[in-house]
């Protein structure tokens, strides 16, 4: 009797294996050289398209009037995303029989596999897709992430690339958007406020200095005259911390703009009797907080 039960159990297990084999057969399409060739061709085509779009958009954005530069640059990630999506859909359909049950089986398997093997990579990709719509940064923006400040020059599958003032290229994964603060200076527009710090002694003529700073800003060839210029003062134990807030016409000119204002102001203030603090402030960070 027990032998019969064991036999029937074995037969049942063999049936399950047969079913599983059938399921895999249903899931995968017939493999052929032609399919591999088409897949390779589509990957190559997608690669060429991605490279072409990147190069064309980069070139075109530098040729058109400044006003359209960011619009063109910002279209790159969407176009690249579309190409990748089309490629994945095509390759999956080449090798896999996409039906409802198959899709469930496949995504379940993939979720487990990717969850263990490529967790961080997948997190970054998903964060990248979300960031496309939430737009904490776009190509052409000036952002600060961790201690890195620069222009977003590339928006990849896994992360972005920042071009810093020191001409470094910093790669930052999209997954940073889940956990870190993203400081975006211009958020898609050409202009962003630039703060230039000055330090004056308690005895300095603040009215005259403020007047010189306004004129220095308005004189600079980089300034966006359509936006306001503001000088704000803060009292410190060692003197007065003066901040000049103004906008350059193009955020790319930020270092040149700040240098131009400083040079003009310092030249003009050289004739003033008392200007700079007698006790030097301790500068702790790049934003000039003492």
């Amino acid at each position, binding site marked *: 009797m027990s032998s019969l039960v064991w036999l029937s159990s074995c037969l049942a297990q063999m049936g399950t294996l047969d079913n599983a084999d059938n399921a895999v057969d249903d899931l995968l399409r017939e493999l052929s050289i032609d399919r591999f060739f088409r897949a390779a061709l589509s990957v190559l085509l997608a690669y060429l398209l991605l490279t072409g779009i990147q190069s064309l958009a980069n070139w075109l954005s530098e040729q058109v009037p400044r006003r*359209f530069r960011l619009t063109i640059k910002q279209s790159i990630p969407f176009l690249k995303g579309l190409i990748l999506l089309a490629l994945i859909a095509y390759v999956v359909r080449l090798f896999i029989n996409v039906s409802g049950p198959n899709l469930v089986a496949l995504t379940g398997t993939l979720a487990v596999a990717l969850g263990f093997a490529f967790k961080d990579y997948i997190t970054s990709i998903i964060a990248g897709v979300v960031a496309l719509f939430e737009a904490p940064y776009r190509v052409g923006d000036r952002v600060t992430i961790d201690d890195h400040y620069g222009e977003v020059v590339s928006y990849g599958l896994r992360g972005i690339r920042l071009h810093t003032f020191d001409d470094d290229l910093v790669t930052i994964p999209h997954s940073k958007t889940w956990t870190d603060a993203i400081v975006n200076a211009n958020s898609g527009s050409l*202009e962003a406020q630039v703060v230039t710090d000055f330090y004056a002694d308690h005895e300095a003529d603040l009215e005259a200095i403020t007047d010189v700073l306004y004129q220095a800003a*308005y*004189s600079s*060839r980089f300034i*966006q*005259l359509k936006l306001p210029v503001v000088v704000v003062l803060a009292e410190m134990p060692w003197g007065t911390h003066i901040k000049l807030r103004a906008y350059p*016409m193009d955020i790319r000119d930020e270092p040149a703009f700040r240098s131009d204002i400083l040079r*003009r102001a310092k030249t*003009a203030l050289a004739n003033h009797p008392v200007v700079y603090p007698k006790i030097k402030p301790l500068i702790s960070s790049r934003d000039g907080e003492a």
Partner: protein
Amino acid sequence: MVGEFVKTISSQLKTGLLRAQSASQISENQLQPLPPVWELDVWQRLQTLPLPDTYLATVADRIAQAITAWQKNLDAPNSLVLLGSPVDDTAAVLTAALTSIAPEANPDVDPERAQRWQTLRPLDWMARPADPMSIKAQLVKALEQLSETDEDDGEDHPNDLSRRQTVIVLPPLEQCFLRCIGGWQGVEWLRDTAGAQRDFFWLIPCNTWAWAFLTRVCQVDAYLDQTADLPHLDRDGLCDWLTPIGETLANSPAEDLSSSVLGKISWSNFAEMSEDSPEIARLLWLRSLRLQAADLPEQPQPLKPDDVLPVPFYQVQPTLPSLPDLEALDYHLVHALMMHGVTPRSQLALSLGQPESIVHVRGQTLRQAGVLRLSRQGLSIQPIHYPRLASEFASNNFLTGDDRR
């Protein structure tokens, strides 16, 4: 911005169609531009061509209207800023308009428009002084005698109107400042003085780009609140103004104009391209002249003042020249010239915060490309390039003359 783009495209399409149409009459391949010697002669004649009477009359009416209102109403503005593009000689237009209504120069002038005031020109310079920091001192010195009379008690009385007899004509406002620290103190002083000296009427020519800048940095529009734009030269005005000079160049007055292409250009397209500015129109008209290749002499001789061209000439639909590729500093250099008008290189260097040698090199390059011209007073914009430059600056986020508030 999209409007500008569509306007440019439609203008280019129209010009292309018109050129194709004229090419069906005479092949443009057979036509050549004037030789440089003759081109210079025709250019000099165009330069001496006085502005149309109707154009000057419009300006004169506007001035007379503003001054009459000031003489009759205590609260009327005591200044008028005449605004023109950076390539228009607004000061010359102002002078010509005032002359046209001066009784001594024109006894037949309509009594309603005739001058009933005394005109003073306390500053004789038309170009910026060599030391821009001395502008305020020069203004103060020239205008210090114009203090209020002693019996003025600081309050307005109807009798004050009788003292309103003096009109002060100032140099172009763009020549009264330089964009650098301390560079527009003179304009600030002028602004305050004009507001305080209400017994004088202040006539000030200025270009729109300088006005837009000064409005932002020292709020001149709050004090000098009455402005008038130069009138537009429309299609008919341009045709009536320029066609006669074409006739004086034709080989024989009896020549049948229909046998040549003279005058067969689209004046509405011409007016659109010249943006209704006489200075741009002069150059565009010059660019429209052509000679048949077979008629071109080997060594053309300069023309005498009243000579006609010794060979038949034709007109084709003119086009605006393309802009060369501009570098980053070129934009700032050209923008500074738009704002300041004619400016020497040393002052441009001071304004741009760049060494004079660099400004010299870029200025020379732009001059060779035809964008700038050089005179004894300094560099300035070549008027024919103005329409495209203005559009280029608007697209590149610069403050332009259209950004006046």
